[in-house]
């Protein structure tokens, strides 16, 4: 609450001078924000500590012994950390496949001409369908349906593979829309300029439109991938023991939920670098545009 008076409001006030004024303001702002931060967390901590069940929660969720043991695993319970490697694996494979499939869908949806009408229809139907179905249902349908079809090789894939297929199907529908927004944000005059130089429709798309479109959608793309990292946990419904499932197994047999906290921290840890990377890309883009404006 104490930061109300500083920050954005002060930034709007005309600064008295280029150096002196902003420096003084900076010093005061740091002090105020420090006090505010300490107060804020003190209040949160007080609420947690003073809550009637706080001791029980501390024992169930933050017991150091169980934090450590669930992280490493025991003879009868899987290690949450080791299981988390499966999440990373699922994420890494899915991400690459999604980037490719989504781009294909977005491009197909943009091909003009009556000949390509059925292709456009398929692309539209695909995005409508897979954005509409909850991921967990797609997981069940793919994971239990495809093996039931008796399609030989395709019906004997691992649970993890079916999980990856389901994630790729659902996320590609979202990411295709992100790509499409990017493609449509590139002004038609860019395509006109490329075509006027003799480039074909495909060359114009590849060298002129797509590079600009992809650059513009990198922040929302990374946002979707942060969501994907977390949704890898849902693959557990097919029986794969990934971090969330391993945590559940530990909690069920030890009657202690520290394993959930460990799994949560692992997800946060892997998300932060991606989030900071996104911030840096946005900042770089902004810097470049501003440099252009000055010149």
């Amino acid at each position, binding site marked *: 609450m104490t930061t109300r008076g500083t920050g954005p409001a002060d930034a709007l006030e005309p600064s008295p001078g280029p150096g002196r004024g902003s420096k003084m303001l900076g010093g005061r702002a740091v002090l105020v924000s420090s006090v505010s931060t300490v107060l804020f967390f003190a209040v949160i901590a007080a609420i947690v500590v003073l809550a009637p069940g706080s001791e029980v929660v501390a024992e169930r969720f933050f017991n150091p012994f169980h934090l450590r043991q669930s992280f490493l695993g025991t003879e009868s319970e899987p290690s949450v950390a080791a299981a988390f490697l499966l999440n990373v694996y699922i994420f890494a494979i899915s991400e690459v496949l999604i980037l490719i499939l989504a781009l294909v869908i977005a491009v197909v949806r943009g091909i003009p001409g009556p000949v390509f009408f059925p292709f456009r229809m398929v692309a539209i139907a695909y995005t409508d369908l897979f954005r509409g179905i909850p991921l967990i249902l797609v997981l069940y349908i793919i994971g239990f349906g495809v093996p039931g079809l008796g399609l030989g090789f395709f019906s004997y894939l691992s649970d993890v593979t079916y999980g990856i297929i389901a994630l790729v199907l659902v996320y590609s529908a979202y990411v295709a829309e992100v790509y499409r927004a990017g493609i449509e944000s590139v002004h038609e*005059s860019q395509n006109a300029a490329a075509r006027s130089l*003799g480039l074909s429709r495909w060359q114009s798309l590849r060298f002129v439109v797509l590079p600009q479109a992809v650059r513009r959608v990198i922040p929302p793309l990374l946002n979707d991938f942060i969501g994907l990292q977390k949704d890898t946990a849902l693959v557990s419904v097919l029986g794969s023991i990934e971090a969330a499932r391993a945590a559940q197994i530990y909690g069920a047999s030890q009657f202690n939920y520290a394993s959930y906290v460990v799994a949560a921290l692992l997800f946060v840890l892997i998300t932060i670098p991606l989030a900071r990377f996104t911030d840096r890309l946005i900042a770089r883009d902004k810097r470049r545009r501003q*440099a*252009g404006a000055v010149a």
Partner: protein
Amino acid sequence: MNRDEAPALVLKDVHKSFGENEVLKGIDLVVEPHEVVCLIGASGSGKSTLLKCVNLTEPVDSGRIVVEGEEITAPGVDVNRVRRKIGIVFQAFNLFPHMTVLQNITLAPREVLKLDRKAAEGRALELLERFGLLDKRDEYPDRLSGGQQQRVAIVRALAMRPSVMLLDEVTSALDPELVAEVLSVIKELADEGMTMLIATHEMGFARDIADRVCFLDDGGILEQGPPEQIFTSPEHPRTRQFLQRIIAAGRL
């Protein structure tokens, strides 16, 4: 057939409508090799549409367009091949913002003409040097002034070695003090014998550079002739009226 004898560009009874609005109502125009033809006329008279039709950016409704003896409006003609022969420069530059100046210029020669990198860059650097832009080769378009961007756009079109250049109001988006540098580039091209069809509002420039001036009015070429004639003793009352307005606005 002797290519030098064939006109660089022939338009025969070209019609073009956008919906109900007929923008070109039967344009006949012949541009000889090395000739510079300026199109003048009020906004909406069809100058830009005419250039877009020649570049096949807009399909014509009827009529024929012939470039160096080849009819480009014939059905089944390879649009991409035709466009290589016709360079166009736009009012809004339309440089590719994600590429450096050099990449902007070498993209089409490399991908369309299939030149190797060295040959394409050699050609580009030569042109950049000629137009005083060599030090900008690695800059991104956003960091150049409007005049520099437009000169790069002209170089980009020239790098394809077109036989005809179409210039569509190339100075209209520029600050007044940047117009001269672009016009001097066009002047240089004219002196070298480049065949050009130029839509412009710069009447003084048209008078200096054009071999022939065409006055477009309501989708047709109302009057054409050498600049001295059009600007000093126009025959048609509509042309006189247009020029009087231009003079009143201090643009001639």
